[in-house]
């Protein structure tokens, strides 16, 4: 991707943090260096794979809760046998890291396969597993070990914002906990593990909070435009529908992942009238709609959001036609980034199928998977911390990290 490379030194995911053992390097195959147009972000690829497995059939909440219960009740043994197999298969790659037959990345990917778990949650679950396996005898040692794990996780895929935001949030909590009072390592450890385990619950509760706060904004007869696949935005729409509100949803096709199809499928099951449009048809339908509802991959310090490609143009069109743009996002997606423009993010190359003959080398293909929407195009953010104006986001982040 030669067009992108000159700017890559401004990348926000600073590669100078490169202390992440030889394992990461061998694993990555030097991917960070040569991002070519044909190679796509493995983070997204894996996610797409998970989603295609899991979203094809009807996934119900009952099914999820049962699966969750089974996992929790059948205790650690089942979990570890499944898990150890995965570790063994990757052992060859991990070679040098013999002290523990455990890789935080496998752990992360294991949790990520659960369709209802957001990436930040999976990251925190993975870090919790690190604590559980840790043999550190001091809080400081544990902290160092965790820091290493979190760096490994972040280096594994530098493009994911929610992953690094989740890691940062948990690390911050660890630092504060160890600073607070626990000279006793076991007490500190169990406290951290307990909170890490609970985080899945916290995130589910966050989604419910957002849905119940946000559904107030959906009123009878409204037409809502969505773009991209967002669990929390879907939960919001479903909750509004279950309360007997009558509204229509227009969703974009969402190339190249066809997220709109997934959204439409889920909304159809919830008996919400839905219409699919081309991504290029946003401005065409904007006159008919009453509000735009979006999810977010990450919410950055300016109060803007980083989300699925096409979000920015949707928000721009909405603003120019004076339609409110609402973003539903859990607070653990708040990330300490301050992108100034589109080029200011690390590129997330995707496989994009355009009708260009494969061998035609002279035509370049733009393959960015996401874009940055500045705060002035957003009306309100629905988060589990309440309904926030974009300017409130930096406030929250400052409170946490100052």
């Amino acid at each position, binding site marked *: 991707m030669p067009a992108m490379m000159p700017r890559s030194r401004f990348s926000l995911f600073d590669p100078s943090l490169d202390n992440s053992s030889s394992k990461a390097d061998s694993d990555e195959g030097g991917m960070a260096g040569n991002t070519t147009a044909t190679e796509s972000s493995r983070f997204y690829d894996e996610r797409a794979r998970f989603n295609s497995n899991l979203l094809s059939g009807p996934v119900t909440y009952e099914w999820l809760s049962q699966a969750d219960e089974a996992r929790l009740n059948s205790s650690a043994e089942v979990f570890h046998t499944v898990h150890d197999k995965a570790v063994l298969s990757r052992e060859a790659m991990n070679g040098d890291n013999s002290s523990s037959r455990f890789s935080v990345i496998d752990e992360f990917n294991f949790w990520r396969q659960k369709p209802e778990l957001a990436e930040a949650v999976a990251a925190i679950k993975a870090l919790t597993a690190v604590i559980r396996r840790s043999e550190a005898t001091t809080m400081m040692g544990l902290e160092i070990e965790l820091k290493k794990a979190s760096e490994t996780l972040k280096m594994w895929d530098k493009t994911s914002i929610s992953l690094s935001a989740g890691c940062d949030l948990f690390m911050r909590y660890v630092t504060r906990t160890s600073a607070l*009072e626990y000279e006793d390592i076991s*007490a500190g450890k169990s406290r951290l593990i307990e909170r890490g385990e609970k985080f899945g619950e916290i995130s589910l509760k966050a989604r419910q909070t957002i849905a119940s706060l946000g559904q107030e904004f959906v009123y009878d007869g409204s037409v809502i435009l969505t773009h991209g696949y967002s669990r929390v935005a879907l939960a919001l729409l479903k909750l509004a529908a279950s309360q007997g509100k009558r509204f229509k949803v227009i969703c974009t096709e969402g190339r190249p992942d066809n997220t709109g199809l997934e959204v439409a499928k889920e909304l159809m099951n919830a008996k919400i009238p839905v219409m699919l449009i081309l991504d290029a048809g946003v401005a065409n339908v904007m006159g008919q709609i009453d509000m735009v509802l979006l999810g977010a991959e990450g919410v950055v310090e300016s109060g803007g959001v980083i989300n699925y490609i096409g979000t920015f143009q949707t928000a721009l069109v909405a603003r120019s036609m004076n339609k409110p743009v609402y973003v539903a996002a859990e607070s653990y997606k708040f990330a300490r980034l301050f992108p100034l423009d589109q080029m200011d993010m690390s590129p997330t190359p995707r496989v994009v199928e355009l009708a260009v003959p494969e061998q035609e080398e002279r035509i370049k293909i733009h393959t960015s998977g996401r874009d940055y929407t500045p705060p002035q195009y957003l009306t*309100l953010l629905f988060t589990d911390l309440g*309904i926030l104006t974009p300017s409130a986001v930096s406030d929250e982040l400052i*409170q946490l990290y100052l």
Partner: protein
Amino acid sequence: MVATMPDVQPLVDEFCTKLNRRQVEGSLDTAKLALVLLRQVISAQRIPPNASAAVLIDAIKAVGVRMIAANLIELAVGNIVRRVLHIIREEDASLAITVVPGVNVAVDSDDEDNSDIREQSSSHAVAAANRNVLRAPSLHNLLESNPNPVKADVTVASTGDSADTKSRSGDKNSRSWKLKHNVIESINIMLDELQDYHSQVAEQALEHIHQNEVILTLGRSRTLLHFLLGAKKKRSFQVVVAEGSPRYQGHKLAKELTAENLSTTLITDSAVFAMISRVNMVIVGAHAVMANGGVLAPVGLHMVALAAKRHAVPFVVLTGLHKLCPLYPHNPFTLLNDMKSPSEILDFGELSGCLNGVTGGPESHVFNPTFDYIPPELVSLFITDTGGHNPSYVYRLVAEFYSPEDIVL
């Protein structure tokens, strides 16, 4: 469960009836009356020695819900109820913090086996958590444990040292008394603030109005009158008053200003756009400020705000903290408005034929809303009794003065 004392009930009923019949109107008056009434409810409330704050909160909520339902458009009542609830929570938490170190000392003094480390740490955690109870949910305490298990910890810790249970129960009693006392004290301070509200806002007038400026306003508000008179002490300036149909409060304001020797020009509402290019600043009063920085103001002001925006004239809104509403306007065009009688717009005799739909004749509708919703992007500045604020800062004020759990009552 615990009913309010019988002698308060008729007072509450009376206030609700008055609200319902619109015998009390306007945010300041309703706020004051509501606050005085809530003070009476609190002082009449008998508090059992344990679980004191919860009882008080329930009592206030029960009364508050009725008062809010009596007239939904008087948002100030709801604001006052929520602020009183916030005060109770605040006082309760600050008492809890002062109590906890006492527990800690007691444990330290009478045994020194390994259990005391744990207890000490837990009491630290309690103090930390209690500080967090008040704070709105934030990233900061996202991973912290929620207050409920901590509360359980408190009772365990306090029943753990059986040596001084007697003194503890006595202490609890005085604690509930202390809580009530502190809450009433805070309410009194709030009442004083409401009394001083006009003068507090007027004091800032000199910072905003300069010599020979032209100020435009629409309708009448008492705050605005005080504000302009505050500026008049040292500055000479002109005021353009739009009459504010259909209630024509602007006429009254123009008379009052002229009586104070301020050079005043009265215009019709439809002349606002023609005048706006000569104006330095638009200053208006408001009915309520919503949590997103949007404003509920007398009808016609949205138009003025748009005109001001068109000519880049600052649009300044005078408001008090009692008008600060922690709710979001979900659908501002249909919610939160008050439809008045058509008689303000036309006399009955004039168009009575057209209004009669029964005879099958032609029918005309008369639409007479009281308020406009002005979106936050049209507002340049809020001047409140605590100083000037940007619309984007309003969420911060809301977080400061309200507890998130009270926002939906």
